[in-house]
Every structure is written in C-alpha cells, then in structure tokens.
C-alpha cells in the first residue's frame, strides 16, 4: 500500500511536472507584442533647424532608439523658417505612408497649433518639444521655462551679493517666443522676492549674437557697474560675452545663460570664464523622455489628442564650481554612437 501511495505521488508529481513543463519553456510574450506594435512605425522630428546642438542631439538619440525597435526615423530641417516648418508638417500629414509620431519644436505659441491639431485628427501622435505652444499635444517634453528663468535669476541673486551694485541686465530673446516670455516671467518672479535687485535694462537680441553684442555694449556704457547679465540663449550669448570682454569687464559682470548643455557650447565656455552659470536643458533626460513617450503612445491604443501631459525635465544651474564630468554631453561622441 505504501508502495502504491509512493507510486501515485510520483505519478502525480510527474503529471504536475509534465503539465508545468510547457509553461516553463514558453517565452515572454512581451517582445513579440512590442515588435508587433512598434515595427515599421514612422517617427519624424521637425525642430526649428537641424543646425544647432540640441536638435542634433535629439536626432542622434531618437535615430538610435527608433532603429532599435524597427521603426523608421526621419528629420526635416526648416532652417529657422516658420513657413518651411509648417510646410514640413503639412507634407508629413499628407505623406503616404503616413507617419505615426511627429516630434515638433514649435517656433512660437500659435503658428503650428491648427496644423498639429489636424495631424492628431488624422491619427498622428504629436509630441511638442522644448518650446511650449497653445496646443494640446499628446505630450510636451522639455523645460518649464518659468522655472528655468527662476533658476537663472537665483544664480544672478547669488552673484549680486553685498558689496555689488545689485544691478542686473537682461538680454531677452524676441518678446514673442514662449521660451523668451516665460523665461522673463520666471526671472521677474524671483526678483520680486528680492526688492534690492534692480533690472537696469532689458534689451532684445532677436537670438542674434551681433545684435546681442551691440545692445550689451550700449547697456554696459549706461551701466558699467552691473553685477550680472542674464542672456536668454547660449546661441546669442557669445555676442553678449564679446561685449563684456571688450569692455574689460570679464569676471566683474557675471554672465548667466541657458543652453542645450553641449560640451563646446556650455561646459568649455564655463571652464574658460566666458559664462559664469548655465542652466542646461538636459538633453539626455529630455530625449529619453521622448523615447519613452513614443514607445508608450504607440502601444497604448489611445487615440491621438486624447490626453495631454507635460513632462518637464529637472534642471539645475551649472557653474565652474559644481561642474561634473557628465554635466555636459559631447555631440561628436553621441553622433558617433548613432552612426552619423
């Protein structure tokens, strides 16, 4: 009887094992499902221009990631022209095969809103990057520009301590772009909490380095005792830096700006004293947030335009003192990795 019982147990165990064995050998359904939903999906990146560090960084990361899931990645280069960008979006909407995701950097608050809405209606997910716009994108990924401005202003406050004039100059972008308007708002919010800080002048560079140099030269003539200048973009801050340098005020007038965090543009310039503080927009975090959103949306099954989320990147002020080896990213290395 005991033998019988043991035999039955063994048989039961064997049976259990036998039926369990196929389950163990079965593969994870994830990759097949992932591939089925992502294979061949088309992603198009339309920045303001492909000619600056951030756009090339986004492109390098997206290219590598989209290729990895078997998708098709393309870029369009409007070369800073709003019309060319609108044309690129229109072409993408009507293209055959139709793209699945548009990753768009809007030139201002309103220009692309209707076009992008149309793209969503046609079943294309729209991700807005870096520049906010009056449009409910499936996700906005990039800076909280008000907060970014606040970070710059806090850096200015720290530079303008006791014994300085406490006078700050601003070199604004263009007075129409969200990045310029919100940055200004954030700066002024912080200065409102520090009534001793005074904004001496706030000229506009139109994002052009030569204009930035000219207006800064004038500003420094009027206020040679400024303790800090906040320039709204490292793309034109080279001109502001030139004016400070030519006035012999390097080191005395601290220069704060914001940029993509590319090594030659931001960290090298912090190192050599051209800039004193830079709020970098954290390319890697921003780009991988885009990658995550693309992968999520393509598998989600939700219709484009259903939800709208803001995914702000956490940012900080980088100075010569707190700079780490990984504070900046190297465009050449990144492009080499993406095989560009």
């Amino acid at each position, binding site marked *: 009887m005991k033998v019988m019982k043991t035999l039955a147990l063994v048989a039961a165990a064997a049976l259990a094992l036998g039926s369990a064995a196929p389950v163990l050998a079965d593969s994870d359904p994830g990759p097949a499902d992932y591939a089925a939903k992502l294979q061949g999906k088309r992603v198009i990146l339309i920045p303001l221009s492909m*000619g*600056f560090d951030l756009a090339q960084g986004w492109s390098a990361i997206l290219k590598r990631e989209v290729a990895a899931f078997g998708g098709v990645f393309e870029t369009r280069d409007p070369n800073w022209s709003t019309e060319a960008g609108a044309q690129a979006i229109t072409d993408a909407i009507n293209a055959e095969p139709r793209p699945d995701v548009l990753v768009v950097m809007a030139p201002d608050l309103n220009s692309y809103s209707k076009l992008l809405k149309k793209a969503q209606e046609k079943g294309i997910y729209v991700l807005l990057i870096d520049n906010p716009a009056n449009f409910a994108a499936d996700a906005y990924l990039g800076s909280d520009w008000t907060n970014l401005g606040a970070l710059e202003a806090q850096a200015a406050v720290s530079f303008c301590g006791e014994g300085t004039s406490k006078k700050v100059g601003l070199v604004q972008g263009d007075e129409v772009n969200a990045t310029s308007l919100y940055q200004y708002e954030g700066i002024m919010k912080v200065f409102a909490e520090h009534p001793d800080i005074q904004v001496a002048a706030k000229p*506009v560079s139109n*994002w052009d380095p030569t204009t930035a*140099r000219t207006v800064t030269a*004038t500003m420094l003539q*009027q206020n040679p005792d400024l303790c800090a200048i906040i320039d709204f973009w490292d793309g034109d801050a080279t001109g502001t830096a030139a004016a400070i340098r*030519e006035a012999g005020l390097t080191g005395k007038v601290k220069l704060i700006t914001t940029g993509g965090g590319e090594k030659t543009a931001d960290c090298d310039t912090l190192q050599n004293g051209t800039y004193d503080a830079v709020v970098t927009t954290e390319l890697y975090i921003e780009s991988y947030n885009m990658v995550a959103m693309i992968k999520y949306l393509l598998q989600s099954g939700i219709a484009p335009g259903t939800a709208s989320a803001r995914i702000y990147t956490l940012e900080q002020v980088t100075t010569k003192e707190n700079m780490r080896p990984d504070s900046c990213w190297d465009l050449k290395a990144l492009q080499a990795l993406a095989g560009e």
Partner: protein
Amino acid sequence: MGALNQERIVLLIAVAIFVVAALALPDFLTPGNLIAIVRSISVLGILALGMGVVVIGRGIDLSMVAVMAMSVAWYLHLLNDGMADAAALGLTLAGVVAVGLANGFLVAYAEVPAIFVTLASGSFVFGFVRSQVISQDAVPVPLGHWMMDLGALRPGGIPADVYVFALMALAVWLFLRFTKWGRYVYFAGDNPVAARNAGIPVRPMLLLRYVLSALAAFAAGLLTAASLQSINSRVVNSTLLYDIVMVAVIGGIGLSGGKGGVRNVLIGAALIGLMLNAMTILQIPQLFQNLIKSGVLLAAIVVDGLLNPRDEQTAQQGDI
C-alpha cells in the same frame, strides 16, 4: 527744394537725433558710447560700401550676407579641419572672388537682372556651404588663431572694426573719385547704353563691382567672427541684408544708379547707428524698433521719389 535732397534730409535727422540724445539721454555723450555707436555700424558700413559701389552702377547684390557668413564659415571649417592657414585663406578668397565673378558674369553677359542673379547665388552659397560643408550653424574660431587677436585689438581704445571701416571708406572714396574706372561706375550707372556706346568697358566693370562687393562681404565676415569668436550662419535669415540696402539707400545712393558716394554711406550708417543706440538706451521694445526703422526707410524712399523724379531718358533703360 533742390537744396534739400535726401542726403541732407537724412543728415539733418541724424544731427537732430544726436543733439536730442546728447541732451536728454544719460551717458550718451561719453567717448565710450560714441565709440560703441561707430563700432556697432562698422560691419554694416563695410557691407554698405560694397553694396554702394554696386548700386551706383545700377545693380544690387543680395548675396552679400550669404557670402559674408558662409565664406568665413567655410574658412573656419577648413582651419578646424587642420588645413594650413595660408591655404585655407587662399582657397576661401578664391571662392569669394568666384562668387563675385559668377554674379557679375550672369548680370553682364547673360543679362539676367541683378536682383534675380544675386538672390539665387546667395541662396546657393548658403545652401551649399550649410548642407555640404558645415554641420552646425555656428562655427568657432580655432583657439590661438590670429582672428582672436584681431578681435581683442583696440589701438587707442577703439576696436579694429572701426579702423577697417575707415580705411575701406577711404579706399572706396579714392576709387570712385580719382580712378578712371571709378568715374566710369557713375557713367555706367547713369546710362549703361550710352556708356557702352562711348567705349566704356561696361561689362568687365560689372564683374569688378560684384567682386568688390563679395570681398567687402568677406572682410565684414572676418571682423564679425573675430569679435564673436565664431560665425553663425543664422545671420543669413536676419534683417541684415535689408539693413545694408537701407544704409545705402537712406543715405541717398539712388537705386536707379549713377548717384551718391561714400559720404552717403557714412550718413546712412550714422543715422542707423544713432537710431539703434538711442532706441536701446530708451528701451523701446524690439517690435517698435523694427517699425520705426522700416518707417524711416519708407519715408526716405518716398522723399527720394518726390525730390528726385525719374529721368525719363534713363528710366527706359530698365531698373534693377
């Protein structure tokens, strides 16, 4: 009314702005600010000198800003790639002269209107260099290059740009005033057919003028890069080209050719420099600055049209 030609009107406006600004604006009349004003228009002035010579000869060169930015971008790219300075400079100069010759050839021999030729060549130069040569809008000056020293050079506390502008103004003045080919520019601009019938080499001179404007553009680009320690091709999208035309036209170099000279460029540049400086000190918003600038240009053109009506005889020769 003849005494009050456009040149004098603009000069009066410039003097009026200067006097009002000197009285009303704080720290306007300091040596530093005056140097800053002259400096701010030096590069613009150099470009306007080149444009002026072309416009006097009844042409226009819309490729100047593209040549200015892209020639220097190419030069810096070659340097960053490790080419020897002399070779890189020689190659770039050859390229600049080639663009000038191509512009001149198409206008003079293919007889395509200058406005179309140079619009197209400017787009070509920008597109070719931007897409085939450089990978980014901004190209940095290599560390330790002489352009860095040039940018830091301030003899007598005055930036090098100002000296270059002054020397080029003198050279162009001497050319237009005292050389045979300089005088011919006016004849050719005033009435090309008559000039040709009189035996003036109108077509080879056209080539020369477009080469001169291309060289002026290259010089302006070098000075810009020297100061900013980089050149940014985005300047091609800016309003700089219109500013150049504005400086030339506002000072009284008529677009119908044969009129004006270096003095007109200087007056036009002075007005622009004073206006921009005063508006910056007054903190007038950018949008209004553009409005004021374009309003002044429009007014100058209208006044020019009223005071200097078209000469029926030459008007039939075709404008730009």
